[in-house]
Protein backbone atom coordinates (compact mmCIF):
# COMPACT_ATOMS: atom_id res chain seq x y z
CA UNK A 1 0.00 0.00 0.00
CA UNK A 2 1.12 3.53 -0.75
CA UNK A 3 0.39 6.76 1.13
CA UNK A 4 -0.19 4.83 4.35
CA UNK A 5 0.91 7.68 6.61
CA UNK A 6 -1.27 10.15 4.68
CA UNK A 7 -4.32 7.92 5.13
CA UNK A 8 -3.64 7.46 8.84
CA UNK A 9 -3.36 11.24 9.26
CA UNK A 10 -6.71 11.81 7.56
CA UNK A 11 -8.25 9.15 9.82
CA UNK A 12 -6.70 10.92 12.82
CA UNK A 13 -8.42 14.16 11.79
CA UNK A 14 -11.79 12.42 11.63
CA UNK A 15 -11.17 10.78 15.02
CA UNK A 16 -10.16 14.12 16.54
CA UNK A 17 -13.35 15.88 15.42
CA UNK A 18 -15.36 12.79 16.42
CA UNK A 19 -13.81 12.87 19.88
CA UNK A 20 -14.92 16.46 20.33
CA UNK A 21 -18.41 15.31 19.38
CA UNK A 22 -18.28 12.92 22.32
CA UNK A 23 -16.35 14.94 24.92
CA UNK A 24 -17.96 18.33 24.08
CA UNK A 25 -15.16 20.43 25.53
CA UNK A 26 -15.95 23.50 23.39
CA UNK A 27 -12.28 23.75 22.50
CA UNK A 28 -12.86 24.72 18.87
CA UNK A 29 -14.87 27.77 19.96
CA UNK A 30 -12.19 28.79 22.44
CA UNK A 31 -9.83 31.56 21.33
CA UNK A 32 -7.23 30.36 23.83
CA UNK A 33 -7.06 27.01 22.05
CA UNK A 34 -6.31 28.60 18.66
CA UNK A 35 -3.62 30.83 20.14
CA UNK A 36 -2.04 27.77 21.80
CA UNK A 37 -2.22 25.85 18.54
CA UNK A 38 -0.30 28.61 16.77
CA UNK A 39 2.40 28.69 19.45
CA UNK A 40 2.72 24.91 19.49
CA UNK A 41 2.85 24.71 15.68
CA UNK A 42 5.80 27.11 15.67
CA UNK A 43 7.74 24.98 18.15
CA UNK A 44 6.68 21.81 16.37
CA UNK A 45 8.36 23.00 13.19
CA UNK A 46 11.58 23.58 15.18
CA UNK A 47 11.58 20.28 17.09
CA UNK A 48 10.16 18.14 14.31
CA UNK A 49 12.47 19.91 11.90
CA UNK A 50 15.44 18.87 14.01
CA UNK A 51 14.10 15.29 14.25
CA UNK A 52 13.66 14.96 10.50
CA UNK A 53 16.63 17.02 9.29
CA UNK A 54 19.35 15.35 11.32
CA UNK A 55 17.58 12.84 10.75
CA UNK A 56 16.64 11.10 13.99
CA UNK A 57 13.38 9.90 12.45
CA UNK A 58 13.13 8.83 8.81
CA UNK A 59 10.07 8.40 6.61
CA UNK A 60 9.41 5.92 3.82
CA UNK A 61 8.99 8.11 0.69
CA UNK A 62 6.16 5.94 -0.65
CA UNK A 63 4.06 6.31 2.48
CA UNK A 64 3.48 10.07 2.46
CA UNK A 65 2.69 12.82 -0.03
CA UNK A 66 6.35 13.65 -0.66
CA UNK A 67 5.72 17.26 0.36
CA UNK A 68 8.26 18.32 2.96
CA UNK A 69 9.44 21.40 4.75
CA UNK A 70 13.07 21.76 3.75
CA UNK A 71 16.13 21.91 5.97
CA UNK A 72 18.57 24.80 6.41
CA UNK A 73 21.76 24.15 4.43
CA UNK A 74 24.22 22.90 7.03
CA UNK A 75 26.56 20.02 7.57
CA UNK A 76 24.48 19.21 10.65
CA UNK A 77 21.62 18.08 8.46
CA UNK A 78 21.63 15.02 6.27
CA UNK A 79 17.89 14.40 6.38
CA UNK A 80 15.23 15.77 4.11
CA UNK A 81 12.92 17.51 6.53
CA UNK A 82 9.49 17.30 8.00
CA UNK A 83 6.69 15.74 5.91
CA UNK A 84 3.58 17.90 5.54
CA UNK A 85 1.63 15.06 7.18
CA UNK A 86 3.48 15.69 10.45
CA UNK A 87 1.48 18.90 10.85
CA UNK A 88 -1.74 16.87 10.79
CA UNK A 89 -0.24 14.36 13.22
CA UNK A 90 0.75 17.21 15.53
CA UNK A 91 -2.66 18.86 15.22
CA UNK A 92 -4.42 15.60 16.12
CA UNK A 93 -2.17 14.85 19.08
CA UNK A 94 -2.18 18.36 20.55
CA UNK A 95 -5.91 18.81 20.06
CA UNK A 96 -6.80 15.45 21.58
CA UNK A 97 -4.40 16.18 24.45
CA UNK A 98 -6.07 19.50 25.22
CA UNK A 99 -9.53 17.94 24.88
CA UNK A 100 -8.66 15.30 27.45
CA UNK A 101 -7.06 17.96 29.66
CA UNK A 102 -10.29 19.96 29.69
CA UNK A 103 -12.44 16.89 30.06
CA UNK A 104 -10.49 15.44 32.99
CA UNK A 105 -10.33 18.88 34.55
CA UNK A 106 -14.10 19.11 34.55
CA UNK A 107 -14.53 15.53 35.67
CA UNK A 108 -12.11 15.67 38.58
CA UNK A 109 -13.54 19.04 39.65
CA UNK A 110 -17.09 17.82 40.15
CA UNK A 111 -17.44 15.26 42.93
CA UNK A 112 -19.75 12.38 41.91
Amino acid at each position, binding site marked *: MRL*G*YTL*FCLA*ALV*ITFGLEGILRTGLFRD*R*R*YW*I*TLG*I*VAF*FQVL*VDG*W*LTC*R*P*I*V*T*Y*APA*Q*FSGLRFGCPPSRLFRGEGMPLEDLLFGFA*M*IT*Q*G*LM*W*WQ*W*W*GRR*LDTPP
Partner: protein
Amino acid sequence: MGNFEYLALLGLCLAVTLPLEAVLHVGVYRQRRRLLSCIGCVAAVFISWDLIGARLGHWGYNPTYVTGLRVAGLPVEEYLFFVVVPLCAILAFEAVCATLGDVSNWLTARRKRLRERIRR
Protein backbone atom coordinates in the same frame (compact mmCIF):
# COMPACT_ATOMS: atom_id res chain seq x y z
CA MET B 1 25.76 13.87 21.91
CA GLY B 2 25.39 10.84 19.66
CA ASN B 3 23.11 8.18 21.04
CA PHE B 4 21.58 10.58 23.55
CA GLU B 5 20.52 13.21 21.05
CA TYR B 6 16.83 12.26 20.88
CA LEU B 7 16.67 12.09 24.69
CA ALA B 8 18.41 15.46 24.95
CA LEU B 9 15.90 17.02 22.55
CA LEU B 10 13.03 15.81 24.74
CA GLY B 11 14.86 17.15 27.81
CA LEU B 12 15.21 20.49 26.06
CA CYS B 13 11.44 20.60 25.46
CA LEU B 14 10.83 20.06 29.17
CA ALA B 15 13.46 22.64 30.12
CA VAL B 16 12.04 25.31 27.79
CA THR B 17 8.50 24.89 29.14
CA LEU B 18 9.52 24.61 32.80
CA PRO B 19 9.42 28.41 33.42
CA LEU B 20 5.70 28.32 32.60
CA GLU B 21 5.25 26.21 35.73
CA ALA B 22 8.00 27.77 37.84
CA VAL B 23 7.52 31.45 36.93
CA LEU B 24 3.95 31.77 35.61
CA HIS B 25 2.70 29.23 38.21
CA VAL B 26 0.26 27.55 35.83
CA GLY B 27 0.07 24.57 38.23
CA VAL B 28 0.03 21.85 35.59
CA TYR B 29 2.55 19.56 37.31
CA ARG B 30 0.66 20.05 40.59
CA GLN B 31 -2.57 18.59 39.14
CA ARG B 32 -1.07 15.13 39.11
CA ARG B 33 -4.24 13.08 38.67
CA ARG B 34 -5.60 15.26 35.92
CA LEU B 35 -2.25 15.25 34.12
CA LEU B 36 -1.70 11.49 34.37
CA SER B 37 -5.24 10.71 33.23
CA CYS B 38 -4.96 13.08 30.30
CA ILE B 39 -1.54 11.90 29.13
CA GLY B 40 -2.68 8.29 29.56
CA CYS B 41 -5.60 8.88 27.17
CA VAL B 42 -3.53 10.60 24.46
CA ALA B 43 -0.43 8.45 24.76
CA ALA B 44 -2.43 5.21 24.51
CA VAL B 45 -3.86 6.22 21.13
CA PHE B 46 -0.71 7.73 19.64
CA ILE B 47 1.68 5.04 20.89
CA SER B 48 -0.61 2.47 19.26
CA TRP B 49 -0.43 4.45 16.03
CA ASP B 50 3.34 4.69 16.36
CA LEU B 51 3.68 0.94 16.87
CA ILE B 52 1.54 0.22 13.82
CA GLY B 53 3.27 2.86 11.69
CA ALA B 54 6.71 1.52 12.57
CA ARG B 55 5.62 -2.03 11.90
CA LEU B 56 4.14 -1.06 8.51
CA GLY B 57 7.38 0.71 7.69
CA HIS B 58 5.89 4.21 7.51
CA TRP B 59 8.85 5.50 9.51
CA GLY B 60 12.03 4.37 11.19
CA TYR B 61 14.61 5.54 13.71
CA ASN B 62 18.24 6.36 13.07
CA PRO B 63 20.34 4.17 15.40
CA THR B 64 23.00 6.90 15.56
CA TYR B 65 20.83 9.20 17.70
CA VAL B 66 18.90 6.83 19.99
CA THR B 67 20.10 4.90 23.03
CA GLY B 68 19.18 1.56 21.53
CA LEU B 69 16.84 0.64 24.38
CA ARG B 70 13.70 -0.65 22.74
CA VAL B 71 10.29 -1.70 24.01
CA ALA B 72 8.05 -3.67 21.62
CA GLY B 73 10.34 -2.61 18.78
CA LEU B 74 10.13 1.13 19.47
CA PRO B 75 12.96 3.20 20.96
CA VAL B 76 12.17 4.24 24.56
CA GLU B 77 12.61 7.85 23.42
CA GLU B 78 9.52 7.45 21.28
CA TYR B 79 7.37 6.54 24.29
CA LEU B 80 8.68 9.55 26.16
CA PHE B 81 7.86 11.73 23.15
CA PHE B 82 4.16 10.99 23.66
CA VAL B 83 4.41 12.09 27.27
CA VAL B 84 6.62 15.15 26.77
CA VAL B 85 4.86 16.71 23.77
CA PRO B 86 1.29 16.66 25.17
CA LEU B 87 2.69 17.93 28.49
CA CYS B 88 4.37 20.87 26.74
CA ALA B 89 1.16 21.66 24.87
CA ILE B 90 -0.86 21.66 28.10
CA LEU B 91 1.70 23.97 29.71
CA ALA B 92 1.42 26.30 26.71
CA PHE B 93 -2.39 26.23 26.87
CA GLU B 94 -2.46 27.01 30.59
CA ALA B 95 0.10 29.78 30.06
CA VAL B 96 -2.13 31.30 27.36
CA CYS B 97 -5.12 31.03 29.72
CA ALA B 98 -3.20 32.73 32.55
CA THR B 99 -1.82 35.48 30.32
CA LEU B 100 -5.11 36.23 28.56
CA GLY B 101 -6.77 36.40 31.99
CA ASP B 102 -4.17 38.96 33.10
CA VAL B 103 -4.54 40.98 29.91
CA SER B 104 -8.32 41.10 30.18
CA ASN B 105 -8.13 42.04 33.90
CA TRP B 106 -5.71 44.81 33.02
CA LEU B 107 -8.00 46.07 30.24
CA THR B 108 -11.03 46.04 32.54
CA ALA B 109 -9.13 47.94 35.22
CA ARG B 110 -7.88 50.48 32.68
CA ARG B 111 -11.37 50.99 31.30
CA LYS B 112 -12.66 51.56 34.82
CA ARG B 113 -9.94 54.12 35.55
CA LEU B 114 -10.69 55.95 32.30
CA ARG B 115 -14.40 56.02 33.03
CA GLU B 116 -13.77 57.46 36.50
CA ARG B 117 -11.49 60.12 35.04
CA ILE B 118 -14.16 61.11 32.54
CA ARG B 119 -16.78 61.31 35.28
CA ARG B 120 -14.59 63.70 37.29
